[in-house]
């Protein structure tokens, strides 16, 4: 039986950011010497690592989630109480209004569990920006109050991005919990029913694949074709694109790697697969990440390690200054290898 408690609630060592960084940076659990990510970037003349134009404003509206997936880099779960307040959302909207950033990417936990989620989406719409939501699918089925989310998303032309590790039950439930596969299929059918993923509807439904285990994802285009064929054949489900995401060696996936004895070999795999083209295109170069408490990070992963932006850039939304943020040095650590392995990995899938 899988644990349904977050590392946080278990008072697990890895719930402590400093301990996670210690694992990543020292010989705490690995004997091998891993080359520093920074040094890899130096070799390809990409250090100091600078953003290009910020195009995506990613907001983590809270760590609460109805699921407790075993790979979750957020360590989200029903027991997490960190939730963004409407005041902080208001600060985000004010910051956003001063910029020409086109896209807001809402993530969590299950972002829909934030009581001000719908209000926030409506206000983003009023600013004329596009919203993407990282919807875990099962939330739509979890409670009556969420059943109409597909209609709400459609009304605001929200782009829906949803995880489905596989098109069968065993691989999906192994990673995301018992019963997740069936609820995910039911939710996908509801999204399709209002037009999501259907040709000509203009409503975008993208799926996210990430490996259920200590291996790297295969080719995105091949997996996409296979998912499309099988989901259509088995369940008459359609979607737009499949994003392949590499599991990051942090938080619960890091716990899994250590517990299963895969940590060292997984890090080695990531490092051996380092791809300079992917490095040029990693998401922190065009994305800024806002935490539930208004702190500013280079990405959602750095957020989970407590690594706020530095290099003189303001690190709280109340001090928002996009010019300064655009000239910051991105904060790096060994987990960054997860973004640059093979075809690369970002919130939008492969990057090379």
């Amino acid at each position: 039986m899988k644990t349904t408690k977050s590392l946080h609630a278990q008072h697990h060592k890895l719930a402590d950011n400093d301990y996670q960084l210690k694992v990543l940076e020292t010989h705490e659990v690995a004997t091998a010497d891993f080359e520093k990510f920074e040094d890899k970037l130096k070799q390809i003349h990409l250090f100091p690592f600078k953003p290009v134009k910020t195009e995506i404003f990613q907001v983590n509206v809270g760590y609460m989630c109805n699921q407790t997936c075993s790979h979750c880099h957020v360590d989200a779960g029903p027991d997490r109480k960190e939730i963004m307040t409407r005041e902080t959302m208001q600060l985000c909207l004010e910051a956003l209004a001063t910029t020409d950033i086109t896209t807001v990417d809402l993530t969590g936990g299950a972002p829909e569990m934030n009581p001000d989620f719908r209000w926030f989406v409506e206000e983003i719409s009023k600013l004329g920006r596009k919203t993407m939501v990282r919807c875990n699918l099962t939330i739509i089925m979890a409670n009556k109050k969420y059943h109409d989310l597909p209609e709400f998303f459609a009304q605001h032309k929200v782009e829906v991005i949803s995880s489905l590790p596989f098109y069968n039950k065993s691989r999906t439930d192994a990673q995301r919990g018992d019963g997740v596969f069936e609820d995910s299929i039911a939710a996908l059918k509801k999204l399709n029913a209002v037009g999501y993923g259907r040709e000509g509807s203009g409503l975008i439904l993208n799926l996210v694949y990430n490996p259920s285990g200590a291996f790297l994802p295969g080719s995105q285009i091949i997996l996409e074709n296979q998912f499309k064929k099988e989901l259509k054949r088995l369940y008459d489900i359609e979607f737009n694109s499949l994003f392949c995401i590499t599991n990051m060696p942090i938080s619960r996936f890091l716990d899994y790697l250590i517990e299963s004895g895969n940590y060292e070999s997984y890090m080695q795999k990531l490092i051996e697969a380092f791809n300079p083209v992917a490095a040029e295109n990693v998401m922190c170069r065009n994305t800024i990440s806002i935490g539930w408490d208004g702190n500013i990070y280079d990405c959602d992963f750095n957020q989970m390690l407590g690594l706020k932006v530095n290099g003189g850039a303001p690190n709280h939304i109340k001090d928002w200054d996009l010019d300064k943020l655009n000239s910051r040095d991105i904060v790096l650590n060994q987990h960054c290898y997860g973004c640059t392995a093979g075809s690369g990995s970002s919130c939008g899938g492969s990057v090379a």
Partner: protein
Amino acid sequence: MERTTYYDPKDLKKFGNISDWDAELGKAFFAYYGKVFEEGALTAREKSLIALAVAHTIQCPYCIDAYTEDTLAKGCDEEQMMEAIHVAAAIRGGSSLVHGTQMMNKFKELAM
């Protein structure tokens, strides 16, 4: 260092070193190998499953490790992987049994 086993998982990573002692043939082999596994009339995924089955036929531990990971990465699940191995096992078992006909022929030739 004293070797304590014939097969060491770490040796798989040294596969490329076979070129050290014959660069020309090594290079030619890896170019061929790479080409074989590209998408073609068969998908890269189908080829990977075939490789997994063959790996079990030749019982090569390196290939079994490599193609377990490769089929997983290419989106195969445990059911498909096990079915592939049963194909290998069926052909292996069948190839022993079908020779039973030869035994029967010879038997009939010799026995009264």
